């Protein structure tokens, strides 16, 4: 396995020349994101951007399982929500130190991803979608009614401690956390592991015939996906300092799909972009919030119909134009 890329590399791909261009856009983004608190020190704007950072991690984590591996997850909010609740409940009721609560929150998302992932390994297509949806629905029912004594229902769990007080410090903390998470997910996705995940999405039987232990890789995708969503949920809990049923709603699960479709499924960067743009849009125009589910659905339908590859496919289109302009493109 280790020899695969190297052996293939000897024939030469000649793609190395693209490097400087590849880093230009992320660098510009990081530069602008770093100076935003200085040029626009609006607490409200920064708050919106912090939420955007959190949902970027959330969307990118959905993409590694569904976009890359092709395992349709309709209940991604369960990982985000469980982690957020565990942080809030342990921190406020058991009085565990925040640092430990966050660890427990992320660990709970990890454990949930094993618990959901294992039975899901044998399921394909619609069966998997229904199962993931049901798991998240159960969690929603527990939080909104059956275990309201623990979750506080709509009132939520209040008084969660925070790592650092203040919007600007939280802005930078969330920015760093987002950059690290997206970078890790992106690197995994572009590695040999990512290639294997894509092969499973394309044709699982064919991947098995190539000698790939698809069960192992699907479980790995579940674990990565659930854990990073858990990280996003844990950060959310300590930043908002209150956790309500919002974190396990169907709406939040649907948002992962809408974010990813807008950006471009199966690209990590696309869903991250989609989450960033849509979060700002929704928070910026607060009156839109009432129509959120409607708008999500409109977005999903229109992108599936008119731009199934999302914004990232526009980039590929531009690149192809460029190549053709340079006379490289074939017949």
């Amino acid at each position, binding site marked *: 396995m280790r020899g695969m890329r190297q052996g*293939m590399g*000897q024939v030469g791909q000649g793609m190395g020349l693209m490097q400087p261009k590849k880093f230009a856009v992320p660098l510009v983004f990081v530069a602008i994101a770093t100076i935003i608190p200085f040029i626009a020190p609006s607490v409200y704007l920064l708050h919106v951007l912090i939420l955007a950072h959190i949902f970027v991690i959330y969307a990118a984590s959905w993409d590694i399982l569904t976009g890359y591996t092709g395992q349709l997850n309709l209940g991604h909010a369960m990982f985000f929500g469980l982690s957020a609740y565990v942080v809030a409940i342990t921190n406020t009721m058991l009085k565990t130190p925040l640092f430990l609560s966050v660890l427990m929150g992320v660990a709970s998302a990890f454990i949930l991803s094993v618990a959901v992932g294992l039975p899901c390994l044998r399921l394909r297509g619609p069966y998997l979608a229904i199962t993931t949806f049901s798991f998240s629905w159960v969690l929603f029912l527990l939080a909104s009614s059956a275990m309201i004594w623990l979750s506080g229902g709509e009132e939520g769990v209040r008084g969660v401690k925070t790592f650092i007080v203040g919007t600007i410090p939280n802005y930078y903390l969330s920015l760093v956390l987002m950059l690290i998470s997206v970078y890790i997910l992106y690197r995994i996705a572009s590695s040999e592991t990512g290639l294997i995940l894509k092969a499973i999405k394309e044709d699982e*039987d064919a991947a098995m015939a190539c000698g790939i232990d698809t069960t192992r890789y699907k479980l790995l995708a579940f674990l990565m996906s659930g854990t990073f969503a858990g990280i996003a949920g844990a950060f959310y809990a300590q930043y908002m300092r209150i956790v309500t049923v919002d974190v396990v709603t169907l709406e939040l699960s649907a948002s992962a799909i809408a974010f990813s479709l807008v950006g471009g499924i199966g690209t990590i960067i696309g869903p991250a972009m989609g989450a960033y743009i849509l979060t700002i849009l929704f928070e910026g125009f607060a009156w839109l919030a009432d129509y959120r589910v409607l708008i999500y659905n409109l977005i999903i339908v229109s992108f599936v119909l008119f731009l199934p590859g999302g914004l990232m496919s526009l980039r590929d289109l531009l690149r192809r134009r460029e190549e053709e302009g340079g006379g490289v493109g074939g017949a």
Partner: protein
Amino acid sequence: MLQVKELTVHYGKALAVENVSLDVKEGEFVAVIGPNGAGKTTLFKTISSVIKPSSGEIYFEGKRIDTLPPHEVAKLGIAHCPERRRLAYRMTVMENLELGAYLRDDREGIAEDLNYVFELFPILKERKNQKAGTLSGGEQQMLAIGRALMANPRLLMMDEPSVGLAPLMKERIFEAIEEIKMERKVTILISEQDASLVLPMSDRAYVMETGKIKMEGRGKELMDNDYVKVTYLGL
């Protein structure tokens, strides 16, 4: 090398393969011919363990394999080039070939085999950065064979490599298969509807109909057999 013993396979209640026994010796080129629905694909899928048999046993070099998961079977050196190609269509030609070499660590060997595949099918080299889905049917078949070769298998199973291809492309594919047979030290088990293409190059062949082995013999013998002549060669 490969022994299939009294294999029976069901899809639910439907019987697809009934009491089939077959063996392939090291270095042989063995064909399974028969019409659509004869159970050829089911037989191949069961050998590579994607489907589990209801009864019977399969041995590869003395080791029982029908109880192993598919990726373990691949590890033993069996490459399955499936019917209708089953490529990763949204991945590039190069990435598909990389997947074929998934189990290997030997850099030099991989590079050598990649060169071999590109010599065998120069068009794949030209299109190496193209998505597999944009290739023509014949080119996709070449890629499927190339992917199987990248595993450097001991036993290469090809399931109906000519299906759905134009006559000229069929011939081109079978020329390549003949080359593989001559140049590579690989045992080949191939299924095919077009008996006239495959029988002349087969050491032995099985005729499979409605899930059963109807007859077996040397390739040349079967070509002279009256039943085969009438039913499969249209003579």
